[in-house]
């Protein structure tokens, strides 16, 4: 066999006590789609940062086409034909797609004052390029006018415009709708067929199955397996990732009450001239999970604000949200929370916790049951937190550590435990498993189901369709602020929900 395009040998990297990468050995071959999979914290990102020159390995070496590659910076890596699309795009919303590509052209500092940009020439060149790879883009539009899918296309074309032949894509499909994902994967195949090598970092097994030629599984900083992908079952891959037999089972669902807990009627909201919510009607029933499907930004955020902080959000809502005797739209957040409403917000570090404080202190937030007058019931809090950390397997099991020092999955477990254990009547949950590893996902899902079984009404907003299908009793699909359909569990259908999310009737 000829020399591999890229070869990692004995790469190790430690941050303090944590071994992010330990003796990583594997090869990547030219013209393949190489899936790099693993749970959060398995070391995928660290490894790619080392490859791309953002981090430096403690030991070991990477060889590119047989020669030692020791990229000290991304600029050097780019010169060698590597290109990376980060998970968070690095784009300037107010500037045009065209200017983003021109920016990438290497240039000396001194001449920059006097060099007139040749936009016409670039536009021509880029239009040819988009045509060649069948990825059209409106080059003169500013980035904020481009959909997320097109922004991603821009990031990739930026790499292609400067002849990158190894593309590193970090969780590229996290931001796309199901339809976009299929088209995107198709495009990856054609990029591969045109001779590019693609490193696909992902934790979605469906993508691996769809496009990967080769799979490398990382687990706890080590290579758990590297093999040509030939139809292995998704479960065997998942087991490799998690390190134990893995089979997500259907949850048994207890039938408890299903009385109407919350009745949302004709809820509308207009902000800056855009109709964010358009005559939305639905009910949340106790003992059921109501899933809200939709591409991010189609009214879900406003819907949650209407339920939790209608007054504080600065938005103007019309309609009503009947909850028992009350209309939530007329209540302040602190009064809504007194009505036993729990919230697991989308952005935990911004909205759920104070990252610099300890887990113990954060566990108090919003939990009035831990206060007796002005005094904190420490023992009660400590005991409950200890039990929760045990139950959810939070690691490290030290409640005095600052919240920020826990990994994403463990942080979320603590937030979920806090909100579930307050014994709410209504629990509003947004993206509970974003940026969370498979083990934690299982624990969080089980906890939400248990909450449901205990008779709590749950509203679950998620952009992960699989999560919604697994947990929900009913799903409403939102698009452009409207509810496109309400589906019962026996009517769940990925294709149909996908179409509805895209705005089709």
């Amino acid at each position, binding site marked *: 066999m000829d020399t591999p395009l890229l070869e990692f040998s004995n790469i190790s990297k430690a941050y303090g006590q944590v071994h992010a990468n330990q003796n990583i050995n594997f090869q990547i071959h030219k013209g393949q789609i190489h899936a790099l999979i693993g749970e959060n914290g398995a070391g995928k990102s660290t490894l790619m940062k080392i490859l791309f020159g953002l981090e430096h390995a403690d030991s070991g070496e990477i060889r590119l086409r047989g020669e030692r590659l020791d990229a000290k910076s991304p*600029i050097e890596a*780019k010169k060698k034909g590597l290109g990376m699309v980060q998970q968070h795009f690095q784009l300037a919303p107010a500037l045009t797609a065209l200017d983003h590509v021109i920016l990438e052209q290497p*240039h000396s500092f001194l001449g920059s004052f006097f060099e007139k940009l040749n936009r016409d020439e670039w536009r021509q060149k880029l239009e040819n390029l988009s045509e060649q790879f069948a990825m059209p883009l409106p080059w003169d539009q500013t980035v904020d006018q481009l959909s997320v899918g097109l922004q991603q296309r821009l990031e990739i074309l930026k790499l292609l415009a400067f002849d990158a032949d190894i593309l590193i894509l970090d969780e590229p499909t996290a931001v796309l709708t199901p339809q976009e994902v299929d088209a995107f994967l198709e495009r990856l195949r054609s990029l591969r067929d045109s001779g590019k090598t693609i490193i696909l970092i992902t934790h979605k097994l469906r993508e691996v199955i769809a496009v990967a030629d080769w799979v490398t599984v990382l687990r706890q900083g080590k290579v758990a397996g590297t093999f040509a992908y030939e139809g292995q079952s998704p479960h065997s891959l998942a087991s490799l990732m998690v390190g134990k037999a893995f089979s997500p089972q259907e949850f048994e669902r207890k039938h408890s009450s299903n009385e109407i807990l919350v009745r949302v009627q004709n809820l509308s909201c207009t902000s800056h001239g855009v109709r964010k919510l358009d005559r939305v009607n639905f009910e949340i029933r106790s003992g059921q999970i109501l899933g809200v499907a939709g591409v991010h930004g189609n009214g879900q955020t406003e819907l949650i604000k209407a339920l939790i902080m209608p007054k504080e959000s600065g938005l103007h809502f019309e309609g009503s949200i009947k909850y028992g005797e009350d209309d939530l739209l007329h209540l302040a957040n602190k009064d809504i929370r007194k009505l036993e409403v729990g919230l697991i917000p989308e952005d935990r570090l911004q909205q759920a916790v104070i990252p610099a404080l300890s887990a113990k202190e954060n566990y108090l937030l919003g939990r009035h049951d831990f206060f007796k007058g002005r005094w904190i019931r420490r023992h009660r809090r400590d005991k409950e937190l200890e039990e929760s950390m045990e139950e959810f397997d939070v690691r490290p099991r030290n409640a005095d550590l600052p919240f920020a020092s826990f990994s994403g999955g463990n942080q979320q477990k603590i937030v979920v435990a806090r909100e579930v254990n307050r014994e709410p009547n209504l629990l509003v949950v947004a993206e509970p498993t974003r940026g969370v590893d498979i083990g934690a996902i299982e624990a969080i899902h089980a906890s939400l189901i248990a909450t449901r079984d205990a008779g709590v009404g749950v509203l679950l907003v998620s952009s992960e369709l699989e999560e919604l299908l697994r947990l929900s009793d009913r799903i409403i699909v939102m698009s452009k602020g409207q509810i496109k359909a309400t589906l019962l569990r026996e009517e769940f259908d990925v294709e149909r929900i996908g179409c509805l999310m895209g705005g089709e009737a």
Partner: protein
Amino acid sequence: MIEELLLSTLRLSTPLVFAALGGLFSERSGVIQIGLEGMMLVGALAAASATTFTGSPWTGVLAGASVGMIWALIYAFFVLKIKADQIISATALNLLAFGLCPFFTKIVFDSTGATPSIPFEQRLGSEFMWMAFALVIITSLLLRYTRFGLWIQFAGESPSALQSAGVSVGLVRSISLACTGALAGLGGASLSISLASSYAPNMTAGRGFMALAALIFGAWRPLPTFAACLLFAFVDAAQIRLQGSATFIPVQVVQILPYLVTIVALVGFFGHQRVPKGLGKHV
């Protein structure tokens, strides 16, 4: 009458235009700029002093621009190198300018805050005005059509994108700040050796902040900012005229007018404009 009013509008707009363009370089590259007032003040003093010593207004122009630039580079050192808070650093430098200028005039000219008056033939006339108008065009072209302009825009909108394209954000911002200082210094110079005949204590009278207001009012773009400067200057010119003619209104009330218009413009427009995304952000 109308003609005179328009002419004095143009003359009065000159210091504002310089300072607002200066602010534009800073804020479009992502550095908050409330330090224009201080830069104008030291620029005005330097220009008047240099003109007094050499007898040539052009050395005054050079001195005003250079001292403004040095002042801005001190700010750059604080906020870009040490990464100090931008608002606090600029406030400190403004206060320092207020304190340092009288100190300097006391030592050098043994006067309480003012420089000796400059004879008419050593002062500049409309040269400043034409320079300011030309700079509006040049800035507009630089931003839109040159590579450095593109870098400034990326530094202000998405510094991390600029960084990952291999361009030093710190260097781009430092150069932009140097331009800021030079321009604000010129604005100060136009006050002390053209509009007036000497440096007088606190002669900028809030023009640095009005320039910032014009910049925001003009949505951080050169031509609209220029228009905003003209508006503010027009109100100023009208105010001066009213002081003479409309005796039934107390002078103090009339003098408030430019500031009142500034506030109204800001309250009405700030928040509706697209602020540079990377303003005040480090890489």
